[in-house]
């Protein structure tokens, strides 16, 4: 008798175990329910694609990804937020995510607003700060409504020192705030913590740690960011959750030149170098600045269905579409799934998605680049094959591929770039976004992945159809 039976098991895994226990050559399918597709909207997408309108859309989308692919970001120095961020005047504070009123804000944002008033000296006490906020004098704006990025809580005021990135391709400038050193664990702007020491540290950074960095950027006539991003993506980074390689490549670029600075206080230069080296994920703000600067060139690009912003404020989640300019399309903020840094944390400690750092996904990094960084995906228990599968899935909703990022794990195939609203609607596949998990009380408690809610895309699609009479 032919004792050989080779079986594929689709479903209950104990049936697979039973086959293996009998010595059967068996394969298990890690089956997932098919993605739910809105058939009606999908049909509408098809109609648009078959119409004469599609050519204009395709061209606009190609131009939009070319803006990212041909980007030439350069770190030009350090400057005050008030000098580089459009609209960041006195009594103005940015926050992450789509616009939201003070009363609706999560505690971290509310505390951030108060802290900002204290930091800038607009108020002497918390009570004064609250009164000032209630009086309506404080203008609260969404960081992604201007040329910065509200990573984490995204609390930025004019006196915060920022990393300045200029895209030499499109001329746009983006300012992002640097991580606040290892001692403050992301601190004020990022993780929503506040104490007099943290505020003090911000001044210390501005006045002491960052000037040597500004000097080295100017000495070098600017530091190109693109080569660092490209090389690090081949070294295991996806440049959202992980910058291990990028950090080293960046340090390789600047540290020797910093050591050569001879007209600044030696202690100060050394402190600055030390700050760069010991701060985890230091390069993150450079990657965000580069991504944001490129996409600033796409805001308002007529006909383009590419996503230019993806972010949350801990309550609501919002996206922007190139052709629809600065209009927000919102849904409830999703919870990230992943791993906590300690087993003492649970979902009860976790805040729904907060932060703008998905500007990197909008430029084809992070969740879209899972294949480049299986180690990042491994924290969710994923293996190499599943990491590649995540990128391959993202390909289905992207406009094209970015030849700057040939990835070894993809046999040097390129990473996808440019999330296309139309493809999201048509396939039902929502973009994967990587990020850090926030404690409701502030601070980082884990890392993981979420999907951008479909509701955002459905609302954006309706607005797009209305705008173009589709």
């Amino acid at each position, binding site marked *: *008798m*032919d*004792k*050989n*039976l*080779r*079986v*594929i*098991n*689709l*479903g*209950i895994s*104990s*049936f697979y*175990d*039973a*086959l293996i*226990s*009998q010595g*059967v*050559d*068996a*394969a*298990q*399918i*890690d*089956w*997932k*329910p*098919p993605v739910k597709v809105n058939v009606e909207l999908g049909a509408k997408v098809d109609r648009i694609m078959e119409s004469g309108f599609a050519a204009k859309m395709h061209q606009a989308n190609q131009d939009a990804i070319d803006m990212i692919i041909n980007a030439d970001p350069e770190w030009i120095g350090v400057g005050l937020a008030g000098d580089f961020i459009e609209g960041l005047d006195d009594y103005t504070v940015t926050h992450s995510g789509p616009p939201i009123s003070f009363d609706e804000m999560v505690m971290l944002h509310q505390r951030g607003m108060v802290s900002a008033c204290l930091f800038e000296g607009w108020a002497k006490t918390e009570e004064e700060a609250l009164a000032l906020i209630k009086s309506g004098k404080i203008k609260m704006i969404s960081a992604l409504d201007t040329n910065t990025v509200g990573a984490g809580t995204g609390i930025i005021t004019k006196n915060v020192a920022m990393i300045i990135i200029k895209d030499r391709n499109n001329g746009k400038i983006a300012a992002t705030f640097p991580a606040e050193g290892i001692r403050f664990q992301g601190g004020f702007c990022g993780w929503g913590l506040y104490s007099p020491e943290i505020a003090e540290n911000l001044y210390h950074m501005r006045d002491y740690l960052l000037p040597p960095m500004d000097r080295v950027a100017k000495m070098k006539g600017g530091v190109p960011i693109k080569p660092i991003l490209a090389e690090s993506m081949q070294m295991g980074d996806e440049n959202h959750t*992980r910058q291990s390689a990028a950090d080293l490549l960046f340090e390789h670029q600047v540290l020797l030149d910093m050591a050569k600075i001879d007209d600044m206080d030696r202690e100060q230069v050394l402190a600055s170098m030390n700050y760069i080296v010991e701060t985890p994920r230091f390069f993150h703000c450079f990657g965000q600045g580069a991504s944001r600067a490129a996409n600033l060139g796409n805001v308002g690009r007529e006909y383009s269905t590419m996503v230019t912003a993806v972010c949350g404020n801990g309550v609501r989640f919002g996206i922007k579409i190139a052709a629809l300019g600065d209009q927000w399309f919102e849904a409830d903020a999703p919870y990230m799934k*992943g*791993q*906590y*840094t*300690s*087993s*003492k944390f649970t979902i009860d400690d976790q805040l729904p998605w907060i932060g703008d750092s998905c500007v990197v996904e909008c430029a084809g990094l992070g969740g879209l680049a899972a294949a480049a960084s299986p*180690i*990042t995906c*491994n*924290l*969710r*228990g994923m*293996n190499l*094959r*599943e990491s590649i*599968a995540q990128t391959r899935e993202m390909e289905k909703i992207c406009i094209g591929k970015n030849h700057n990022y040939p990835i070894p794990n993809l046999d040097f195939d390129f990473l996808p770039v440019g999330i296309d609203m139309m493809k999201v609607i048509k396939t039902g596949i929502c973009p994967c976004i990587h990020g850090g998990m926030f404690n409701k009380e502030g601070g980082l408690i*884990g*890392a993981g992945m979420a999907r951008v809610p479909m509701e955002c895309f459905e609302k954006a699609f309706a607005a797009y159809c209305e705008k173009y009479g589709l």
Partner: protein
Amino acid sequence: MKKVIVKKKRYVDSVSLMSVSGRVSELPGVSGVDAVMATVINQRTLRESGYTLPADVTVDDLVIAITAEDEAKCDEAIQAAMDLIDHKNSGGLQEFSSLDDAELKAETYDLCQISLPGEYAYAEARTALDKGLDLFIFSDNVSLEEERTLKEYGRTKGRLVMGPDAGVGLINGIALAAGSQNSFGPVGIVGASGSGAQEVACIIEHRGFGVSQIIGTGGRDLYPEIGGITMFEGIDRLEKDPETKVIVLVSKLADLGVMDKVLTRADECRKPVIVIFLGSDQKLFEGHKVTPAFSLEEAALKAVECLTGEPQKPQFTDEEIARMAHEAVSQLPAERKYFRGLYCGGTFTEEGLLYFAKHNAGIELHSNLNTKYSTRLLDSHVSVGHTILDMGAEDFTAEAPHPVFNPELRLKRLRQELTDPEVAVVLLDFITGPGVARDPITAHANECKKLRDMGVPVVFIANICGSYNDPQNIREKIGLLKDAGIIVTGSNFESAKIASAMMTELERRQTNG
């Protein structure tokens, strides 16, 4: 308790360690898992969490810190963490994302076994047929329309479609789904009833013979809409199979027209065919040449008779059963007067009910099933008088896993019945195999033994539908049941006969008393 181990100079990326903590935390009895490099910050956090670290710990060391119920659980968690860190469990597992996974050469397999939620089974089944695979569909809730389409499509492709709702199968000696690992032998079975086919196979095995194939058709194959497509395909295959000498067809009573066609096809078969339509009478077989059987046991014994030429007898004679029943019941106090049948096999419940209806006419039977032989229980959770329960039916499985896969549900019910002072006789059926509960038997035996040790007089009857080759080791389990004072029968039918005789005794005593 808390336990810490340090692996000196072992470096593991912190990101990988995060997933280790998360996965090990899922172990039962484990409340805290920290697998971290002993950085200064991590050392501080661990101490703050109440762990004691050895004095010589350095930043180059890996620390695994566990909080769990007891030492054994701590050790288990540490081992699980190290296995994950050493990638011990990742080897060998062949897992793919879909049938279309580029790395899966689906065409090089023979059969696709599907146990997805019913609404998704059809699409995957269709893909599997396109890839040239035979199908075994365990899933239920597949529409009749879809079943027909699949079976017709399978026929055009020359592929066998077993199921939907096929519980057991044995193909080329390999047990599928909830099936038993029956020894190989000359009897081929096509079954529209999973547990029915398995019962026939196991009785044949226990008589020293074996089974060539069990082809499960799914419970609706003999509906007029399907017309027995898989039944006919199965007969064809077994007729051609040189290893099969005798064929047994097993089904519940089905559509008359289709049953007649099956019998006509079986008449033409070049091999002896034994047919049972559970619940049918002799009349159905009039004008046909096949050998009829009227219980699963009889079907199995006829098959053995076919092979040996020797008539086969059940384990107990009718006289022995009558004596056994009389003796058992006479030892019970008068207030113990009711029978409780706690079945997990659907076909076994039906076989029991059919037998009781016929042989205990006039006795009111209660059941969670809606049958013409019984009164429907108002509440499935509360037994009334003589109660026969199918604990694999939806009113139970909606709230807990099917007792074949997880014995908890029935165990709970058994405990509940045993608190009832009117319970006289309890019947249990057990089903074994590599795909079902690791040990469905021991816990039940322990409950019965506990009761006996306390001197509570309740009579237990049990049968194991399983193969000697099954991982549950049924020889040992039969011993365990007997040690607990349980009457272990040779078949479900025999269990029913004994239960029926006892019910008769109980009723007679009531009337006389």
